[in-house]
């Protein structure tokens, strides 16, 4: 039996949207899939050595549960993003959810390959020194070449 393949395209760089690619990748790898995550656009933030700038904002995010109702005018105030991020991280920890750093390490440990989209790396002028080691560089064709005829491809 050939190994099943899964490619995940990580295109978002907020705390909430950073979780699904790493969770799916770590799980798929544990279940025997060969997995690649293709980081593109804002998803490139998830490859940074320091993930403390990965945040969540209540602004423009009406589905985000808040302990008290928060008018949009208040969400705009300086520091609200940091407050929301701290609240979310505390909640994640309380519920036993791994940190992003931990999940990312688990992925690497399980041989998940991280591919940075070369075009958006150039667009945003990232340097390879901004990113963790173990990052490869490629384009859309490399991603499609990996999934082949019947690999799973998910866009996050």
């Amino acid at each position: 039996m050939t190994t099943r393949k899964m490619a995940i395209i990580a295109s978002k760089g907020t705390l909430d949207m950073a979780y699904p690619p790493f969770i799916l990748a770590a799980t798929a790898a544990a279940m025997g899939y060969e997995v690649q995550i293709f980081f593109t656009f804002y998803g490139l933030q998830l490859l940074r050595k320091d993930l403390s700038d990965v945040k969540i904002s209540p602004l423009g995010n009406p589905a985000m549960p808040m302990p008290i109702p928060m008018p949009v005018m208040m969400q705009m105030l300086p520091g609200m993003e940091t407050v929301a991020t701290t609240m979310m991280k505390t909640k994640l920890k309380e519920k036993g959810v791994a940190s992003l750093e931990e999940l990312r390490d688990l992925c690497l440990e399980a041989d998940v390959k991280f591919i940075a989209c070369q075009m958006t790396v150039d667009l945003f002028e990232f340097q390879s020194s901004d990113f963790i080691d173990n990052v490869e560089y490629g384009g859309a064709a490399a991603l499609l070449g990996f999934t082949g005829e019947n690999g799973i491809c998910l866009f996050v």
Partner: protein
Amino acid sequence: MNFDKELDASGMACPLPIVKTKKAFADMQSGQVLKIISSDAGSMKDMQAFADQTGNTLLSTTEEDGKYVFMMKKK
């Protein structure tokens, strides 16, 4: 039921119970039994799917005091 190794994944959320299960199996022999304790209700379906996908055998699933106990035999 006898088991060869125990993994306590209590308090851990998805995907940690599955990832830790995979890691626990890594240094076990074929035919050995791993006991997994989880507090994540989602692991009821997840452990079955993990077993189906990986070819390991889920021997039993029990629930007691809000904890889920799985016995899984390595392929």
